[in-house]
């Protein structure tokens, strides 16, 4: 049993690498395997580059590679964020958008696309308003007696508020910006190019790295506030740190890739069912499994048909039944 679990964990850590290689091969434009290998190595061996059709390099380095890297980064960011917030809120049913983040981002993007025009990148505004939403939740709930319950409740309310504002903007927007907005809202890993990645990835990966460092601390933070305090934890500071990091990586990921749901809820759960609740394992495993999960969903989304289906649809289609299946089989990964 022990070995089986260890094997499973190894598999999870290894899966992003495997999927990375497989994903490079997938795509509407057929590139035979030997040519693919040559294209990948062509920066090192310029002689090969001459012998290959020009389109190959464009596709591999310009279309597929950024998309794959983005999927890995966003998948791990959303999963780690979900895992961290679940520990913080002592509730395995919390997802990474619980603090109103996705609605804030959506509203921010809509403001930018409608008032600054589709030419201006909506990422900045999306990121800003995602953070604003979280700050709003934190400040409103700080005044209340029961911090955890009110955080969740305030998150729901602030989410609803920004969603309503978004609907208002949509109602008055011109059809031109509306198109652009819907494109953004549905979540799309194809749109961002290397320059977008260069801006977002440092935040995302940096934040994930710090949360991975905090993984044992998350165990302690998942205890009741009283217990954590009695263990000497500066709750205000450490909670704020975790929320700030989770917000940073989720907002950065959402700003560049749009709203992709379910990952932060499902992946940490799956991990806990397979590897137990200790966050020393859950956090890094969530990062790995989340990366693979989103990459797999995106591969399916872009390979299934000649047209593209929003990737969020596949994260739900794969994730929810998987979740239900494991839920019924699991013993007590959570109470």
């Amino acid at each position, binding site marked *: 049993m022990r070995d089986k679990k260890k094997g499973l964990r190894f598999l999870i850590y290894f899966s992003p690498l495997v999927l990375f290689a497989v994903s490079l091969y997938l795509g509407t434009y057929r590139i035979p395997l030997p040519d693919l290998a040559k294209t990948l190595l062509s920066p090192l061996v310029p002689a090969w580059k001459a012998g290959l059709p020009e389109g190959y390099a464009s596709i591999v380095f310009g279309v597929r590679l950024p998309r794959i890297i983005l999927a890995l980064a966003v998948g791990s960011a959303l999963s780690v964020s979900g895992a961290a917030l679940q520990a913080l809120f002592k509730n395995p049913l919390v997802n990474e958008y619980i603090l109103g983040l996705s609605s804030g981002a959506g509203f921010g993007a809509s403001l930018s696309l409608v008032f600054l025009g589709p030419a201006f990148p909506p990422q900045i505004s999306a990121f800003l308003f995602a953070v604003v939403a979280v700050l709003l939740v934190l400040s409103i709930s700080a005044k209340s007696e029961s911090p955890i319950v009110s955080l969740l409740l305030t998150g729901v309310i602030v989410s609803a508020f920004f969603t309503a504002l978004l609907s208002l903007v949509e109602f008055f927007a011109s059809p031109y910006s509306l198109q652009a907005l819907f494109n953004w809202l549905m979540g799309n890993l194809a749109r961002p190019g290397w320059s977008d990645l260069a801006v977002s990835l440092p935040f995302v990966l940096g934040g994930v790295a710090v949360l991975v460092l905090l993984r044992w601390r998350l165990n302690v933070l998942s205890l009741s506030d009283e217990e954590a305090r009695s263990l000497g934890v500066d709750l205000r500071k450490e909670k704020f740190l975790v929320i700030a990091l989770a917000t940073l990586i989720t907002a950065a990921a959402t700003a560049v890739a749009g709203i992709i749901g379910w990952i932060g809820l499902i992946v940490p759960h799956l991990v806990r069912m397979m590897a*137990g609740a200790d966050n020393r394992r859950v956090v890094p495993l969530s990062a790995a499994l989340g990366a693979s999960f989103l990459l797999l969903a995106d591969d399916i989304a872009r390979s299934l048909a000649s047209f593209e289906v929003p990737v969020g649809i596949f994260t739900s289609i794969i994730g929810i039944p998987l979740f239900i299946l494991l839920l019924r089989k699991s013993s007590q990964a959570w109470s």
Partner: protein
Amino acid sequence: MSIRVQGLVFSRRNFTLRIPALVFEEARLTAIVGPNGAGKTTLLRCLGGLLPVPRNTLFLGDRDLAAIPAGERARRMAFVPQEQASAFNYAVREFILMGRTPYVSLFSLPSPADAARAEEALAFVGLAGHGDRPCQQMSSGERRLVLIARALAQDTDILVLDEPTTFLDPKHESDVLDLARRLVDDRGKTVLVTLHNLDMAVRYADALVCLKNGTVAAHGRPAEILTEDLLLAMYEIPMRILRHEGRTFIVR
């Protein structure tokens, strides 16, 4: 390390705790008893640093509790709550390891030395070999022991236990108090407990603090202070103290 209370006044809604002077001697097991609503838990939580107390009212050794930073306080005093229900099903070993928090910096992992201390605590409470079991699978009695083990892993001189025997069957009740006794006798810790069971209090405690209406009604060695008048004053029902075969029984 002893705990000294000096002019503690703690008010909350309809209740005020008022203790002008009290000392919990070091390396002793002190039981805090009294009727419901007397302020036992409030006092315990003040002592454990969970409720905010003003300066110069509580002293750990000679340090003012209100002035000690949280991390340092956690190295001197451990608090064991009555019940604990985690949303996550940690293994016993992982749970006890969390007691090492004051010694693990924010971005670090517990060291092998920390793991060893946790193992030791596990063994001390008699649960060696149960380390891999999920906490939620343990019985209430075992869970109490796990909580105490966590506090033990915290390596503090002082342990404060809130009603550690409530809801336990007689055997487990004895187990827990035997453990408390060993903490004092074998390790020289200062242990404070709140108890409802007067028989056990009398039997195990070195000192007794009797609370009534937020004030100390009596304080000292059980044999010395426990009288039927005191019991009547505290619990407002007549009680008898019987001695039989060298043991003390309190009956209604």
